[in-house]
């Protein structure tokens, strides 16, 4: 699912399918089982919970991911990151703290070179809901 760049959402956004945001969201985003991609035009001012988060645009807010956070080279994050795997590309902007939780006593990390493209949005029947 895609949120286009002309779309502005103020409120809580949750769902059970992968989501790409090119627009603007202010509030809270929950996709706990799915991948959230903030596209190059995306501007987010929200707390984010997802399975994986790929940042190519601007995020102001904390990001918690159960699998990974990737900040790509034009991505910008002002907030705290918490995930087992975190990759920050050269040229990315980041200010905040980084917490990589231990998993089975070992921390999993990935270097920027190992960043893989975000998973393609799954054609899931479930919908994304917005609570205002």
């Amino acid at each position, binding site marked *: 699912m895609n949120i286009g760049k002309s779309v502005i959402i103020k409120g809580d956004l949750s769902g059970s399918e992968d989501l790409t945001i090119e627009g603007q969201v202010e509030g809270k985003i929950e996709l706990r089982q799915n991948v959230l991609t903030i596209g190059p035009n995306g501007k987010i001012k929200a707390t984010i919970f997802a399975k994986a988060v790929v940042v190519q645009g601007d995020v102001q807010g904390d990001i918690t991911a159960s699998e990974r956070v990737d900040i790509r080279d034009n991505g910008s994050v002002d907030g705290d990151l918490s995930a087992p795997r975190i990759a920050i590309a050269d040229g990315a902007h980041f200010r905040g703290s980084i917490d990589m939780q231990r998993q089975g006593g070992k921390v999993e*990390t990935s270097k920027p070179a190992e960043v893989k493209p975000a998973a393609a949005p799954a054609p899931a029947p479930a919908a994304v809901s917005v609570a205002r």
Partner: protein
Amino acid sequence: MTGLFKWGGRKDEGPSAAPAATVAAVAEPLSTSKILPKLISVLSHVESPILMDLGPVVGSNIAFFGEQLACKIFVEDLFAEVETRARRGAREELAEALVARLARPPASVDGILCWDVFDYLDRPASQALAAHLMKLLKPGGVLYGFFGATQAELKHYTRFIVDDIHGFRLRQSPATPTKRNVLVTRDINRMFEGLTVAESVLLKSNARETLFRKPS
């Protein structure tokens, strides 16, 4: 709602904002480190240590320290503060600005990576920053510093890219020129009076790497 439209764009944060392609094209000298293994060794005995990195964010360093230490890392790019003030011709604001940026509870950090930030500061800013960092360190905490020794105009910032536990690649990005704040060993030790010198190494380049430790 109109505020939403003001988020746009990357922050003008000096060296961090340099395009990756620009800096990657420049040769990256290597620098071995005898201090980095000691820092890792000290912090590896701390459960979930808190590390503060005063340089621009480097993804591979985050991965390295996360893997080695399973730590929480605070990234506070002081070079960006330096560059912002340098462009405005307002370096005299740095002492206050740096301390304000690092507003955290006293004794809340296990390790601090200063890199070569002191080379870019004048004496008052250096002293103010050093005093504040000493407050932030927990007892037993460690502080890493890299101090240039030659009088020179600095025209670039250096990112210390940790290759492995024994050294760095030094990646340069343009800076507003400034005269290096050369600190001799006596000055450095006096600035961090209250900490003990765990180890200090003079490199072939005449730069000095020092690891300070706060007494327990």
